[in-house]
């Protein structure tokens, strides 16, 4: 069995699956249940200064897609609404009970050095393994000058990170908000401030849905709604891109990344690792299914690694990063076209409708002896993949590479590119 142990920002855990700072990690009761289920670590739900914040009812919005619940999820809950001392006592207790698991504490206090210094001292005394700076929450706290309000200003990120590194021996993980134009600026600021790692993404500013009877955004609080933070399976592509951006950035090399955003299965986790993450944090999937999903994550990842011959996580961590290139580096002379396996085809015609209505008219809808037959018109196919995506049958439509006999060539050198040395005027 593959070795799933991970060392992230100096914190050792027996597996790379952590629970993200969120409702599932708000108190000892939940965290103990999570550890009993097998999670490698938790990031305790964000602590703030007393008096505690006040939360509203209700707090969550969700997207159902095609009958599947919680394809996307958002929340308008704030940081912990329990007294600081109570949380600190519980953290101390839990860490004592579970010495082999990581307990990292998420923090969010006003943007002044004294506040950070004070809370860091108290957290350190719990025996916690590290802190995560919550520069990401896009609702409620940001309006009070915290959370995403810090994360969106690189100078603040750097400043607060530096304070924290100055006032604690614990590893400092900086959690980044995706609600920025350029994630690299925030990540660079964290690094410059001395961060031991970054974690991303925090939630995305969103309105999950509109209740068309109440005419209010959801979740509805006494007839009104507000924007919340979006997460769950729907945000994974956004998270993967931001993680990968940081992973391939030369100036950020060596900065550990904790991948967050829609991780629901071992496969999702493997994708984050392949794009450079050192561990992953999970929230929505646990909130949807309960803590025991970690069992399949552990065995699934391990079985896949065994099948691939990876003995430990570092064997494939970042393996896809060199292949995450800029568009300009893609080979313009590569060609693939779709191929339909007629034995698998169930004649639903979805490929035809998609190609004919919205793409390149490169599928023929035929009748052969009265029966339906869909065929690729090879010379028209641009290899866009749409048919393969809409086909409901696994492996029925595959993309086959077609030798062009031409060498690798990209846009940077293309004759149609005005900034290319080979540019040819019309």
């Amino acid at each position, binding site marked *: 069995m593959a070795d799933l142990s991970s060392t992230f920002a100096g914190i050792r855990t027996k597996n790379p699956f952590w629970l993200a700072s969120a409702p599932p990690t708000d108190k000892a009761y939940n965290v103990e249940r999570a550890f009993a289920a097998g999670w490698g670590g938790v990031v305790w739900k964000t602590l703030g200064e007393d008096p505690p914040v006040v939360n509203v009812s209700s707090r969550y919005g969700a997207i159902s897609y095609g009958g599947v619940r919680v394809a996307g999820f958002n929340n308008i809950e704030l940081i912990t609404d329990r007294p600081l001392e109570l949380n600190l006592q519980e953290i101390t207790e839990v860490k004592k009970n579970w010495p082999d698991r990581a307990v990292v504490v998420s923090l969010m206090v006003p943007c002044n050095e004294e506040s950070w210094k004070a809370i860091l001292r108290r957290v350190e005394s719990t025996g916690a393994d590290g802190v995560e700076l919550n520069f990401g929450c896009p609702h409620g706290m940001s309006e009070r000058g915290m959370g995403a309000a810090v994360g969106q200003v690189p100078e603040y990120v750097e400043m607060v990170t530096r304070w924290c590194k100055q006032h604690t021996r614990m590893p400092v993980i900086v959690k980044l908000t995706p609600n920025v134009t350029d994630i690299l600026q925030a990540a660079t600021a964290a690094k410059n401030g001395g961060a031991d790692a970054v974690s991303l993404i925090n939630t995305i500013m969103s309105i999950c849905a509109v209740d068309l009877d109440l005419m209010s955004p959801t979740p509805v609080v006494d007839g009104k709604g507000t924007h919340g933070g979006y997460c769950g399976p729907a945000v994974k592509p956004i998270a993967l891109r931001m993680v990968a951006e940081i992973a391939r950035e030369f100036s950020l090399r060596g900065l550990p990344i904790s991948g967050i955003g829609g991780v629901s299965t071992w496969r999702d986790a493997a994708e984050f690792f392949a794009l450079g993450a050192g561990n992953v944090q999970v929230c929505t999937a646990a909130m949807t299914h309960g803590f025991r999903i970690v069992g399949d994550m552990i065995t699934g990842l391990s079985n896949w690694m065994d099948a691939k011959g990876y003995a430990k996580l570092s064997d494939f961590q970042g393996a896809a990063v060199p292949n995450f290139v800029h568009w300009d580096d893609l080979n313009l002379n590569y060609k693939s076209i779709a191929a339909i396996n007629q034995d698998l085809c169930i004649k639903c*015609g979805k490929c035809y409708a998609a190609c004919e209505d919205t793409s390149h008219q490169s599928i023929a*809808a035929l009748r052969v002896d009265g029966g339906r037959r869909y065929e690729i018109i090879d010379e028209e196919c641009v290899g866009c993949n749409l048919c393969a995506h809409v086909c409901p049958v696994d492996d029925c439509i595959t993309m086959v590479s077609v030798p062009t006999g031409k060498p690798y060539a990209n846009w940077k050198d293309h004759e149609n590119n005005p900034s290319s040395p080979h540019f040819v005027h019309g």
Partner: protein
Amino acid sequence: MSDIASPINANFADAHPALSSAQAVIAANRCYFCYDAPCVEACPTGIDIPAFIRGIATGNVAGAAKTILQENIFGGACARVCPTEILCERACVRTAEMGEPVDIGALQRVATDWQMAQGAQPFTRAPETGKRIAVVGAGPAGLACAHALALRGHDVTVFDAKPKPGGLNEYGIAAYKMADDFAAREVDFVLSIGGIKMQYEKRLGDTILLAGLREEFDAVFLGLGLTGVNRLGIAGENLPGVRDAVDFIAELRQAADKSKLKIGRRVVVIGGGNTAIDAATQAKLLGAEEVTMLYRRGPEHMSATKDEQEWAQINGVNIRFWVAPLRIEDAGGALKVVREREEFIADLVLKAVGQVFVGEGPALEGGRIKVEGYHTSLPNVFAGGDCTAGMDLTVHAVQDGKMAARAIDKFLGF
């Protein structure tokens, strides 16, 4: 004393209860929304099945209902009685993919039940044209034709020999397929378009004459159905205790309290069609201890589908294949159905070996009214449904009625 709460009556409750809205959404989301969907081609009325299922999936049930009903005004009955396993659901690409089609029949019921619960049709009648059409037969063919004609603004009078409308839906189909007086409620729904007068207990050739109708009305549609039954052609078929299955079913359907119906301890049903299945299953549900269907050929030859055969078997009917009775004898207080080297003792024998067209007027072909594009041999007389050639299914009758109405409309110069 009537005992509606008797377990016997409970036996005739809905055979396949309606899907809940949650079940409906799951079932609807299994539909791939095919292009050139094979199910549409397999539906005799050509309902745009992917379109109506998408309506259910998205919460547009009103749109779904209209999509169904504009092609098939008896969509509610067809959702209950169509042999979907040989029509739309057999064609469903999910059948090819994994042997589990989308539950099209049940989904159609969701939408049509919803529309009927609204108490109104999603259609409005066109301004009156002044044209008058007689429809003979208030079954699915006749009423589908009447509805389509009334919708176009024509004035329709429907005649039926029976005291109630609905034809086979009211008298000829197993009760558990049409539970809760569905057939009558659906006729009310169909007639709510307006412009249709109903005349009951008017039998063609008896209290009304085709010649008179042809003169009085601009056009006549014959949806007469099959009013005769085939004889077994063996000795003893007229003995007391030997009945036509269609009469047995009609009596059962009209009985408010089925626990009061007499049924023998041992019942033999002779035949292999849907009528035989419905008669045998209902005999069992009425409390007969032993019900045996005798069919002269094999299961693959039966006109009742495999699903129908299994339904009867699940309900305890014993189906015997390759059994051809030679005669029926009086066995002193019981009947004896005799074949070579085997006898079946029965208290009741039901004959279900097919129905035939009985009537006169337009020219016949193969024993049924000859039609060409729904025109009969008589200039202003049209026909459709079971009295003409083709599969004897409700859904075919509805399609005939709908298409005949178009032919009549054209004939009248519209």
